[in-house]
Structure formats: structure tokens, C-alpha cells
């Protein structure tokens, strides 16, 4: 399939053939990762839409080619193919790093995932303005159990690589999907009832961890800036430290942005990967995610979660790969603040 794909260097993208292995139907863009669909309404205009998956429609896609070689003929089809390709890239990244990362053996209805192109959701429910230039993973509890969605919002202001073509951004969302099943769904009711501070810490970690997997998939530590060149520093290769200001935002939820603290976690993982090998670190993080609910105690009770809690769980998962250099990287980034 001809798609837009990252080529490894900083924000370098190319057009080229890519193998998409899990498609059942090219014309419907449907397979193991789910189906690329659209919905004409605001997804939050009725609870039945996301809870039951009502009203989603297959896209009218056009591809040229035959056998194993296809190319999208129009923009809608190109975005649809790129979305599916990016998510599959995330799927194989996790699966190949560790068999325990195979989402197909964890999510019973993986094929029912809806990958929503041009998703419509109001930015603020009371206002008419719709969300744009963003992407999200979303899980909703419905009558038939949890339903999973990837939402790709319309592109309005991005002049470089729109998010639907940014493989890093979609793998980032895929990592949220994995974290949801590996960690969040293993939290007990008590474990879900945390203070804002603990919940904010977990959200920040979730964002940073997803950024690191996005880097692993694209090998581009600046993948985020390919779409947002002027946004705050989310380049993983730039070392970052947890600041008092960030910690204050985590504690109070005032001006809190989970991506800020997340950028620190992501840069730490990047440095650890540079030290011990990114594949080894990726494997350790899958193991860490699978054990995180137990390690933090959230599988059975409520507990306070700090960056130090997360660090200790990761060190545990690293085992003998947790070299003094790794400890030092954590110390430099979190210092004494990580325990607060």
C-alpha cells in the first residue's frame, strides 16, 4: 500500500510502499486493528453513539491496484490507509518487543475498534467550535462491554504533517490503548479513586510513555514537532528535568498539562534507551506496564503515586539492566522532587 511514512531522520517523511499485514478488506479499510469509519454527527451529541457504536459508517474509499499492491486514489483514502498503517505499526511494535504486548491476545474485541476519520466533538460542550488538529484514544463502557476508538480530528491549522499522516502521533495513541488494558483496567475500584495529584502523575506518565513508544516506532525523537514545529519542547532527545512549577501543577491541577510532565518521563526513557538499548528498554516498559497495577498497589487498593513510585516499578521491571547509569538518569531528571 502506498502511504506517507516516516523515514527515520528528524521529521523526514516519504511516500512509499508499506506492507499492511492485518487488513481483511482494503476497500473497507477493515482488519485486525478495527475499521476506519466516519460519523456525520458530534460523537457526544448522543450517548448511544460512543457507548453502542451507533451511526458509524464505512468510508467510501477508492484504491487502484490489485493483488498485494494498492494505492489510494484520493485524499480520504490516503488518510484512511495512513491511519490504519500507523496503528498497525504500533501493534507490531508492541507484539514484536514482547509477546505479552500482543493486544490481540488481550483485547477480545480488537477488530471492533473504530478508527474515526474526521471525528467531530465539540471543544467545549456549550460552544459550537469543534475539536481539530488532534488525535485521541477513547474507551467507552457500553451495553456490550468496553468499546475502543481512535479519533482523528479534522486538520485545520497544521501546515506540515497533519496528524493523520504522523505515524508517531498514531502510535502514541496506540500506546494509550495498550496502557488502558495493561494497567488502567487492572486498577481496582479503590485504585481508580485517587487524589488529583496521583491521577495527574499517572496521566503525565501515560503521555510520556506513549511518546517513547512513538519514538520507538518512528525512530524520530522529534516526531511530535513534525506536526507542531512551534509547540513546547517534546523532542525526546532533549534532556529534561522535573520542575517545581510542573510539580505544583500536578498537585493543584492548576495549569496542569499532562504532556509537560510526560515530556520529562519520555526524555528519561530516551536516555535510558540510549544507555541500554532502545529495544531492551521497550521490552522493560511493556513488562512494567503489565505489572504496574500490582506494583503500585492500585490493583487492590488506593495508593499515592509519585514519579518515584513509577521509577521504582520500572527499575524492578528492568532487573539487572537497571545499571547505575540508569539510576543516575532517573536521579538527574526527578531528583528529590520525584518523591513529592
Amino acid at each position, binding site marked *: 500500500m*502506498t502511504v*506517507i511514512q516516516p523515514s527515520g531522520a528528524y521529521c*523526514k*517523511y*516519504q*511516500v*512509499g*510502499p508499506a506492507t499492511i499485514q492485518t487488513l481483511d478488506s482494503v476497500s473497507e479499510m477493515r482488519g485486525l486493528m478495527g475499521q476506519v469509519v*466516519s460519523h456525520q454527527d458530534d460523537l457526544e451529541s448522543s450517548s448511544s453513539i460512543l457507548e453502542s457504536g451507533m451511526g458509524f*459508517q464505512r*468510508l*467510501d*474509499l*477508492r*484504491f*487502484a*491496484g*490489485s493483488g498485494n*499492491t*494498492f*494505492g*489510494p*486514489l*484520493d*485524499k*480520504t483514502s*490516503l*488518510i484512511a490507509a495512513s491511519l490504519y498503517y500507523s496503528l498497525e505499526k504500533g501493534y507490531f511494535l508492541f507484539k514484536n518487543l514482547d509477546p505479552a504486548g500482543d493486544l490481540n491476545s488481550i483485547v477480545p474485541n480488537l477488530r471492533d475498534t473504530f478508527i474515526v476519520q474526521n471525528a467531530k466533538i465539540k471543544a467545549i460542550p456549550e460552544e459550537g467550535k469543534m475539536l481539530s488538529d488532534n488525535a485521541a484514544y477513547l474507551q467507552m463502557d457500553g451495553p456490550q462491554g468496553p468499546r475502543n476508538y481512535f479519533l482523528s480530528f479534522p*486538520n485545520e491549522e*497544521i*501546515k*506540515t*504533517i*497533519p496528524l*493523520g*499522516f504522523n505515524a508517531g502521533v498514531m502510535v502514541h495513541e496506540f500506546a494509550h490503548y495498550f496502557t488502558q488494558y495493561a494497567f488502567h483496567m487492572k486498577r481496582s475500584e479503590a485504585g481508580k479513586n485517587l487524589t488529583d495529584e496521583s491521577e495527574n502523575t499517572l496521566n503525565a506518565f501515560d503521555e510520556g510513555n506513549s511518546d517513547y513508544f512513538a519514538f520507538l516506532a518512528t525512530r524520530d525523537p522529534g516526531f511530535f514537532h513534525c*506536526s507542531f514545529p512551534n509547540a513546547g519542547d517534546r523532542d525526546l532527545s532533549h534532556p529534561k528535568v522535573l520542575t517545581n512549577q510542573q510539580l505544583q501543577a500536578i498537585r493543584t491541577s492548576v495549569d496542569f498539562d499532562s504532556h509537560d510532565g510526560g515530556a520529562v518521563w519520555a526524555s528519561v526513557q530516551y536516555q535510558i534507551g540510549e544507555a541500554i538499548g532502545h529495544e531492551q528498554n521497550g521490552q522493560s516498559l511493556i513488562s512494567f506496564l503489565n505489572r504496574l497495577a500490582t506494583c503500585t498497589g492500585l490493583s487492590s487498593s488506593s495508593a499515592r503515586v509519585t514519579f518515584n513510585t513509577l521509577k521504582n516499578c520500572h527499575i524492578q521491571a528492568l532487573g539487572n539492566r537497571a545499571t547505575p547509569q540508569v539510576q543516575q538518569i532517573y536521579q538527574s531528571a526527578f531528583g528529590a522532587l520525584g518523591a513529592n
Partner: protein
Amino acid sequence: MKSFSLLITLLFLNTPIALARPLAPLMPPRERASVISSSMPTAKKQLARSERQAFGLETGLVGIGNNSSGDIAKLQLVFGLRANYIFPISQRFFLKPSIGFFLRPESEGDVSITQNIVESGLGAQYALVLRGSLMWHLGISQHLDYLFSRISVYDSSAMTPGLFRYRVGPSTGLRLRLGDGWDFTSDLEAGVIPTDSMRTQVSFSSGLIFFLD
């Protein structure tokens, strides 16, 4: 008295007025071939516009049915040029082979995709109305299209594989006389693509026709 009446009748019938009407051929309609009697060998045979060979150049658009990303009325519009040849078969029937090239550029950020259609067509048309300087024709058109797209991002680009596609459907058109040697033409075609779930496709083109004879 009887002889006088016969004489008067013969004299009357011999006047040019009396004799001309029943013998002279009716004037042919302006748009039809003038059947000039062999007694006027120097007159040039005039052909109706439907009977004349012509070459046409048209600009137009193709609307491809698409439920997800139509520009207007659920149609993706592809713009281009078409050249055609008009080959008369009879007084009112003519064939209209054509070739055309249409494209539709789309972009999002630094990513662009241009859809290309190279078409070859053959239409069979019947001139339903030939009145004054107007001709209205109706018929059937079929096209064999070759589709491919060019995708680009930054300095990288690639062509998709190509796709052949056959479409067929009714067509109609109007021609308006602009001068002795040329007409304005407008053509409308509608069709379905049997190999693509009967996807609908319409096209509209306008341009000039230049007579070759």
C-alpha cells in the same frame, strides 16, 4: 364556347406561375442536405452539421460519486480537457470518439495527492433536433479510463498503481452555430462503473467544434 374555355385554361396553365409550383422542388430545410437538381451541377452540396466531420476541443469536469468526500452533491470533481472527433454515419447519426485528461489535486499540510484520469471514449449520438443554428443530440457514451494518483510529501513523491475502468451511460449535448466552420458544444454524460459497485459518474464539458469538410 367549350373550345374557348379550353384555350383559356391552357393559356393559364402555361403561365410561369401556374406551372412553376407543381414542378419546382420544395426548398429543403436549412439544416438538411439540399437536393439540388442535376440541372444545377455547379451548386455545392451543403451538409447538415450532424453530417459533417469535425474536431472538437472541450474543457470539462468529471464528477465521481463518493459518499464520504464529495465536493458537491456527493461528487468528487475532477477537471480537465477532452478532444473529440465527430464521425457522421448518416444524416442524423454520428459517432464521437474522444480522448481526455482530467485531474483533481488535493492537499493537507505538506501532503498532496493528485488524482489523474486518462480517458478514451466512444459515443453514438442521434441528432434529435436540428433547428436553425441549434442542434440537440442524444445517445450513449462509453469510456475506458485509466486512473492513477501521484502522492507527494516534501521532496518525495510516488505514483500509485494504475487502474483501468469501464463506464457507460446516456449522454446528451447541444451544439450552437458560431460560424460556417465552427460550433459551440456542450456535452453531458451520466454513467455507472459496473466494476466499482455501479459507482455513478457524470461529466460535463464545453468547448468548440471545428468542421473538417
